[in-house]
């Protein structure tokens, strides 16, 4: 597992980046000539969630029910969304998200608040998703359309067409196997570095790169788009 310093919020901006949210994290447009090892300088890419005050976190760590509920309500969509993107199945996502929250509150007394809480929760959720393999390996068919309702995180500003593209990609990702979906999501959606992903998955960097490449190719085929020698 990478330590918290490897998972930093996206904070840097550059001229060639396209803003996605109002003052929030940005998306960098890449080309086929880009060196993929430097494609993403910061990570993970996450929607903005207001950080809770340290007092509330401390109370939740002590077992205060009200503070615990507030934290769950604040992060439920983030956690559930990460879980769902990692596994592509609403039922598994439910189990993963619950397990993630159990781990969050188990580890909360040790959380030192050096990193953002959302970054730490992201890491815990990814870990829970990677540990949860049982149902995913048995699943033969992708979930039925409309089983989940995708929405934009508050403060995110995209056009209708861009959002529809996202929905199409989400639908296509549900048809990917876990061996390519997980590295693809961690790299292409959340912007982790290959070495971070390799550590999380326990795989060499070369294997991760190959899986991401296969995942992209599969998505393009599923979406009936063009491939240009990637």
């Amino acid at each position: 597992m990478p330590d918290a310093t490897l998972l930093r919020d996206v904070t840097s901006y550059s001229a060639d980046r396209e803003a996605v949210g109002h003052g929030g994290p940005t998306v960098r447009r890449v080309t086929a000539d880009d060196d993929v090892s430097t494609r993403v300088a910061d990570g993970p890419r996450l929607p903005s969630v207001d950080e809770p005050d340290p007092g509330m976190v401390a109370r939740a760590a002590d077992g205060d029910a009200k503070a615990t509920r507030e934290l769950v309500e604040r992060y439920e969509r983030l956690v559930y969304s990460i879980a769902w993107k990692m596994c592509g199945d609403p039922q598994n996502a439910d189990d993963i998200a619950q397990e993630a929250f159990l781990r969050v509150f188990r580890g909360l007394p040790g959380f030192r608040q050096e990193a953002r809480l959302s970054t730490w929760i992201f890491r815990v959720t990814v870990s829970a998703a990677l540990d949860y393999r049982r149902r995913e390996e048995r699943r033969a068919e992708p979930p039925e359309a409309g089983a989940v309702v995708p929405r934009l995180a508050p403060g995110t500003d995209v056009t209708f067409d861009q959002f529809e593209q996202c929905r199409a990609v989400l639908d296509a990702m549900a048809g990917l196997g876990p061996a390519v979906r997980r590295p693809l999501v961690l790299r292409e959606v959340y912007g982790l570095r290959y070495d971070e992903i390799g550590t999380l998955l326990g795989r060499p960097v070369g294997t991760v790169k190959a899986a991401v490449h296969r995942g992209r190719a599969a998505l393009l085929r599923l979406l009936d788009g063009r491939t240009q020698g990637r």
Partner: protein
Amino acid sequence: MHRIACGPEGLDSALARLAFVEVDTPEDFVERVMAALGRADGPERFALLRSVLQTPASVWQTARRHTEQTAERLAECDRLRWGAVASSAVILGVVALGLEARHLSRLREERA
């Protein structure tokens, strides 16, 4: 299925934007998480407290009185027990001294 008209570059952007696409949680998700965490919710805690508050004062007083009486009896038993132990120790000590004295007396007579 929707076409990604820009090919790989359009896919890049769509994938990156997915970080900001969230899905709704089931309606009872928070409740199930709270139950899994074992955190008693406010109403449940109040119900427990209310049952305590509704117990009559006379019941509390009787219980307290019985508890005090039991404690006194146990303390008395302890005092008697320790007193018996102390008495036995004294008696045994006296007997031991007496036996030793008789032994020493016999030794003196034999030498004499």
